[in-house]
């Protein structure tokens, strides 16, 4: 293994992605430190989701470097390998396994041997049951454990998906618009949940909702046309003229 090239947990340098000539990411560079929580904001089409696609291996960049933990070059790896390294992703639209029970959703996500062979000879264990119970305490869905995930409400699905992320015990969580379509009370609870998660893990949140970002109270990176235009506290970036022009001033 190469020596560690950076102290950052996630390091993006000059990442460029084009779709049919449209530059979704344009020389995008930023770093996330271990233990940090970072909010990434930007208008529609700023490249927020494409950035997540690149980090999780769904999209290959034309050029640029993406390093995880200073040693893993994510641009060379498959989605499943990246997930196993400890990067978990929550999608914009809640994607849970609808025809499985809530409990089985968590069971599938639990950090364990992912090989087909292991899944065939798998046995339930006390350790696994305890881990699932602990997750239910965090995401507060214990009363719904034997319900089919497809019958959950929108907000409950979002929490289940966050629970599934936690079950993977990732080092880095990428959370795409977690409060889209949530009520104010649910939004508030989600902010608390993410803060709690951040005690043990690094979190990157992509969000539109400015009240939510303010409630998180973390460093903000503003994307526009696939590149970083400002970085700092929410008050700093809100005062930035360029940011006002492209995003907040609309």
């Amino acid at each position, binding site marked *: 293994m190469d020596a560690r090239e950076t102290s950052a947990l996630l390091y993006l340098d000059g990442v460029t992605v084009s779709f049919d000539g449209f530059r979704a990411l344009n020389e995008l560079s930023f770093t996330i430190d271990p233990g940090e929580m970072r909010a990434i904001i930007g208008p529609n089409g700023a490249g927020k989701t494409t950035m997540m696609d690149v980090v*999780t291996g*769904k999209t290959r960049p034309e050029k640029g470097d993406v390093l995880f933990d200073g040693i893993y070059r994510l641009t060379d790896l*498959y*989605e*499943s390998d990246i*997930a*196993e390294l400890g990067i*978990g*992703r929550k*999608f914009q*639209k*809640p*994607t*849970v*396994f*609808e*025809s*499985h029970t809530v409990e*089985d959703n968590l*069971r*599938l*996500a639990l950090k364990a041997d*992912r*090989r*087909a062979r292991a*899944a*065939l000879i*798998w*046995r*339930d264990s*006390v350790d696994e*049951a305890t881990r699932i119970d602990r997750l239910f305490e965090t995401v507060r869905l214990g*009363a*719904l454990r034997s*319900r089919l995930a*497809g*019958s*959950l*409400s*929108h907000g*409950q*699905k979002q929490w289940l998906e966050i629970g*599934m992320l936690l079950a*993977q015990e990732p080092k880095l969580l990428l959370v795409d618009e977690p409060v889209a*379509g949530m009520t104010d009370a649910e939004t508030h609870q989600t902010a608390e949940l993410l803060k709690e998660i951040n005690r043990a893990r690094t979190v990157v949140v992509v969000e539109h909702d400015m009240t939510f970002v303010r409630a998180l109270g973390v460093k903000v990176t503003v994307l526009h046309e696939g590149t970083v235009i400002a970085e700092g506290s929410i008050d700093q970036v809100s005062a930035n003229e360029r940011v006002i022009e492209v995003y907040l001033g609309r």
Partner: protein
Amino acid sequence: MISLFARGFDRSTTTVVLIILGLAVAVPLLNLMLPPESPFHVPLYIVSLWGKYASYAILALSIDLIWGYCGILSLGHGAFFALGGYAMGMYLMRQIGTRGVYANPILPDFMVFLNWDHLPFYWWGLNWFAYAAVMVLLVPGLLAFVFGWFAFRSRVTGVYLSIITQALTFALMLGFFRNNFGFGGNNGLTDFKDVLGFNVQAAGTRGALFAITCVVLAAALMMCRAIVMSKFGLVLIAIRDAESRTRFLGYRVESYKLLVFTLSACIAGVAGALYVPQVGIINPSEFAPANSIEEVIWVAVGGRGTLTGAILGAVVVNYGKTYFTSGALAAYWLFVLGSLFVGVTLLLPRGIVGTIQHLWSGRRRPDTPDPDPQSVGQPAPAE
């Protein structure tokens, strides 16, 4: 905490296994023990006919395992069935020996007819049953593995995968039709005499073949049920419902698909091997793309993703086929089959067993109190 494996088989699986095993004993006995005048006598042709249905049911199970639980719609599963059938057919051909028309102790009649002077290498060893039995699993399994390795690794899914499976079976059909392929050309393999030293025409052998097919069907059902109830099965359903989500959880989707596809092909191969001695012939028309489509219809009719439904669908549709094609309505069978598929898709999208299960669980639901009354009635988000 109950282990998934220890949840045991659901009641419908247990019931179906018992029914199949009951038939395995009863049908041959009613044929062999009762005089033909008895109203309970089962004629010999019925034994073989239902033995054929049972082997079709095994094939339907193999399709339901991949389609119902992993979302892989193979429209070429007849190819694996036919390959298993050919492996068995080749063994049966070698058993004919000097009793053939040309009385050649080594070469089957069609090779003598083609003026071949020696046995092609791929026929070697097939005079031994054990070797043929291995080939029954190995040939379909290997083809499925190689095919799946390329298809799943390149992430070919949905209709594209279905189309190339059709192409696969079509290509094999064209190949097997050729005389120089060495599998008897369009006549295929037939005129079988013995299997393991027993006359294939004898009532006792037919009864035994029927019973063996039923036992294999019951075993295949239990194996498939154990698979879909294991964590492996949970992953299969996850792949069916949200493939890329499963990938982001760290599962190598292609390995899971490859394993279950190969296993399914092996089961289909066994079904073909049990089919051939009971119908007495295997020819390239078994590779016809239409056959593979019909097999998928059995599963759709019975209920995709239920396993027991696949068995029921295979038996019901084939019984209907026998019934219709043996009378004045013969000319209309394809219309019946087509309207069956359209009708089931429109009116019974869950199939027979799926609909019953759905109604059953709907009726039971009011007994269990809803743990979260707040979420009831809340509309699901638009997809």
